[in-house]
Structures are given as structure tokens and as C-alpha cells.
């Protein structure tokens, strides 16, 4: 006999959750994969290895990885400062970290473009050094760093807050210097959270659209990202091609999230 559930509402919440999830998420995504599956493997290969797709994929994955690396480095610095030190304006800075989450991507896009354009606040100074950010791959990288960096801070912050000082004290009593303590004792404890933050920032960057398309200039083969390529295929009514490129992007994203889940499970198991 199955165990009786004490708390009511199992049937109702299960029914509603599954129906809603299927209608809004699962069936539409299945439709996408079905559309892509109408083409054979040869056509998949043709679409995914066309020069324009390869150029866009290189830019998307390259800029996303570079942005996620920079986000991770500065995310570590910012989290360290926010968790470990006291200084005026700290609460404000902490709240500000979430700005890229809350600011609509189109607003971020036009604003970053205005700042980094050759006549913008930063772009003007950089152009005197011969560096152009807006309308180049560098611009894509800047926008993706803006979008990705809060993921690292918000993933690392709870881990760092829970990290007690006993390990550091033990290391210090054993004669380790501050730098050694950081590299050999503290940093290794943060690596899983850093990897998770990096992967979240990377996964988000792959799909990012609104903040990139203004600053990138959208030149095919040069500064065109994968999501934009999907849109341009759609505008030419090449639905199958759009579905194939999207399916490829989704498979990469799902794999990344699956890896994070594995990592988290491993960690939960270790902490038990």
C-alpha cells in the first residue's frame, strides 16, 4: 500500500505543473527539434559547416569563453571584496551587481554602444590608442562580460560567506604566509563555485542577443553571432536552417547545464 501523503494538494499541483510545463516549454521545444529532424544528417552537416555558420559559431563561442574567463577573474575579486572587507558604499555596490540581470538587454545594448562608440565616453579615449570596441568582436566581448559577470558573483558569494576562518588559522599557525594560504588553502575551496559561475556565464553568453546586436555591427562573417544568424535565416523564411542552428545551440547549452548539475551533485555528496 502506498504511503499516504499528509499534506494535501499533490494531485492538483502535479496536474497543473505538468500541464503548464508541457504546453509552454516541452511541446514548443519538441516542435523545434522535430522541425530540425525533418532534414537528414547530410543537410544538417551542410548547414552547420557552411562558412557563415562556422564564422558565427567561432565568434559566439570564442567571445563567450573570453567574456566568461574575464567575468570569473573579476567576479572573484568583487566577491572577495564584498564578503571579506568593510568599506563605505559596500551595500550599494552589492545591490549594483545585479544590474545586468535587471536591466533589459536592449537598454544595455544601446548604452554600451553609446559608451564604446568612437565618439563615446570610453570609445573616444580608446580610439586615440587605435583600439576600436564598438562594431568589432571586441564589442561582443564587452557586452557578454557585462551580461555574464553577476552569475559568477552570485554563485561564489554564498560559498565564500560560509567559508569559516579555521582553515586559514590552521594554515597560519603552521607558518604559511598570506599568499600561500590564499593559493593553497582558500582558492581550491572556491574552484567548484568558480567553475559553476563560469559555466553559467558562458551558457548565458551563447544565447545572448539584445545586448550584443547593437554593439556588434552585425557584419556577416565578421561580427555576426549565432542568435542573430538564426533571426536572419528566419527573416529569409529558411525555417529548417534556423531550426537546425537553434537545435545545435540548445544541445550545447543543455550539455553545459548537465555538467553543472553533475558537479553540484558531486559537491553535495562531498559535503555530506
Amino acid at each position, binding site marked *: 500500500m502506498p504511503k499516504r*501523503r499528509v499534506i494535501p494538494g*499533490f494531485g492538483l499541483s502535479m496536474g497543473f505543473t505538468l500541464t503548464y510545463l508541457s504546453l509552454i516549454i516541452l511541446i514548443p521545444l519538441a516542435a523545434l527539434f522535430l522541425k530540425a529532424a525533418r532534414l537528414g544528417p547530410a543537410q544538417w552537416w551542410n548547414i552547420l559547416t557552411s562558412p557563415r555558420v562556422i564564422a558565427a559559431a567561432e565568434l559566439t563561442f570564442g567571445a563567450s569563453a573570453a567574456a566568461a574567463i574575464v567575468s570569473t577573474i573579476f567576479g572573484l575579486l568583487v566577491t572577495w571584496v564584498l564578503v571579506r572587507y568593510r568599506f563605505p558604499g559596500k551595500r550599494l555596490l552589492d545591490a549594483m551587481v545585479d544590474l545586468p540581470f535587471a536591466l533589459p538587454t536592449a537598454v544595455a545594448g544601446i*548604452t554600451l554602444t553609446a559608451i564604446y562608440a568612437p565618439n563615446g565616453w570610453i570609445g573616444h579615449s580608446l580610439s586615440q590608442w587605435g583600439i576600436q570596441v564598438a562594431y568589432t568582436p571586441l564589442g561582443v566581448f564587452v557586452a557578454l562580460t557585462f551580461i555574464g559577470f553577476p552569475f559568477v558573483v552570485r554563485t561564489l558569494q554564498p560559498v565564500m560567506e560560509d567559508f569559516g576562518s579555521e582553515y586559514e588559522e590552521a594554515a597560519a599557525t603552521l607558518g604559511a604566509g598570506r599568499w600561500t594560504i590564499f593559493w593553497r588553502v582558500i582558492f581550491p575551496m572556491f574552484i567548484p563555485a568558480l567553475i559553476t559561475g563560469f559555466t553559467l556565464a558562458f551558457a548565458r553568453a551563447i544565447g545572448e542577443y539584445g545586448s550584443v546586436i547593437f554593439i556588434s555591427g552585425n557584419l556577416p562573417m565578421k561580427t555576426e553571432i549565432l542568435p542573430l544568424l538564426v533571426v536572419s535565416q528566419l527573416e529569409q523564411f529558411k525555417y529548417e536552417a534556423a531550426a537546425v542552428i537553434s537545435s545545435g545551440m540548445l544541445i550545447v547549452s543543455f550539455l553545459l547545464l548537465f555538467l553543472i548539475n553533475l558537479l553540484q551533485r558531486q559537491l553535495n555528496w562531498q559535503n555530506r
Partner: protein
Amino acid sequence: MASRPVTTESAPVRLLLIGGAVAFLALFLLLPLTAVFAEAFRKGWEVFLAALHEDAALSAIKLTLIAAGVSVPLNTLFGVAAAWLVTKFRFRGRSLLISLIDLPFAVSPVIAGLVWVLLFGARGWFPPTAMADAFAPAAHLAASLAEYRGLGWLFTDLAAWLADPKIIFALPGIVIATVFITFPFVARELIPLMETQGSDQEEAAVTLGARGWHIFFRVTLPNIKWGLLYGVLLCNARAMGEFGAVSVVSGHIRGETNTLPLHVEVLYNEYQFSAAFACATLLAFLALVTLGMKSAVECFTGHQSTGHK
């Protein structure tokens, strides 16, 4: 002389690190935020106000409010039901379900729009022509209901829509794309919160004879209200600010299917920079309010939000 504790750095190192972090945040976050407002007011108050009073801007604001007004309540309802399901009960497939709820975070906004085009577009699985045939009896009924005086006007729009059931490049498409994008936000806030609170109080309420909804409204809701509020705020901010997904399904019909972020894009592409940034300030202001409320909620509850992915 008091020596510094072994668990912190020397003062110069501390200052250097704080300086580095502050400089990074100022350059990457504060500067863009300032730039939105600076660009918006570059040509003065008159231009700013005129940009917000324009018909296209007003209709964009209206459409944005409608999209958020539908998707936020729907996803709040779902968030509460899903959080109740996965935190109060243990069943097979539970962790798979939690992963599936997170799924939209891994989907590019562009793809979130594309799926609806593939389903309901002119060359999709359910094109408007096929749906018009299927809805013909309903359209007929609604049309005859609309003839009635009194409440008949309620059915006029419905009858018109059923006769030509457009989803893509029309309001319903914008709404469902927004629903897709904002799907996990409330659930993601509530699940960790309700998981840590456990179900002891609800079980106690059951033994005291409380019934289902009574338990939810009198026991659970007071415990989760701040987390719920924050989830709703995040959901709303994203619903009003969504760009990629909405841009794919909207068709950019000015004054008809442009939401506020799309209107910003149109103005920007027409080189009306001051007007574009004027409309962008509304969205930036919304973001600031959301962040302010988040800090306030954290102050009230004394707990750090888990953040959202």
C-alpha cells in the same frame, strides 16, 4: 602594537583589492547606468517628454503592460504550484522535474521566439489558415453573441480574432513568448526557500484539522511572502524588458506590435538617439526599482537571496 589578524591582508593590499573591485564595478555598471540618463537628457526636457508622449511610445507602453499583466500572474501561479509540488512531496522524477523547470534559462531568447513561429507561423504546424477553419464554429458563436446589446461588446474583439486567429506578428505571440521567457523566475525563488523551511508547520496544521487552501494561505504564504514578492518582481522586470524573444514574434509593426524594448530599438535604428534613450530610461528606472526592492526584501528577511540564474 596590535598586529593584524592572520585571516586578512595588509592594509595596502586590502586598499588595492577594494580599489580594483570598485573601479571595475564603476566602469562596467555605474557608467552604463549613468550613460542611459545622460543620453536621454542630452537634448533637454522637451525632447525627453515629447519622446514619451508620442503615440507609438504610449502604445508600446500599453503593450508591454499587457504582456507583463498576463505572463506574471500565470507564472506566479505556476511558480507556487511547482514549488509546492517539489518541496512538499517526494516522488519519482522529482529532480528531473526541477531541471526541466530551469530549462528556459538555457534557451536563447531568440529560440524562445522561434519555437512559436514554428508552431503558429504561416508555414508552421498550426498556421492561422488551419486554425481559422478549426475555430469557425466558435467564431460564428462569438459573432452572434457580439450582436447582443449590453454585454455584446465583450465578444467583438474575440469574434474578430477567431475569424483571423493570428498569433505570430500579433499580441498573442508577444504574450506567449514572454510567458516562455519568464517561466522559471517565481519557481526558482520559491523552491530553495520552501525547501529550507521544510513542511513541519504544514503537517502541524493538518493534524489540527486545517484544510488545503486554508493551510496555504494561513501557514505557508506568510512564511514565503517576501521570497514570493521578490520572485514576482524579477519575473515582472524580465517580462517588461524582454527583447530577443518578443522581437522574433512581433513583426515590428509600429504602434501595434511594438513593446517598449522594441520601440527603443526602432528609434535607435532611426538615429533618434535621444528619444530611444528617453524610452530606455523608463526601463532602466524599472530595473533600479527592482534592485531597490530586492535590497529592501533582504533587509526585511535578513537573508541573502539565492540569486537567479
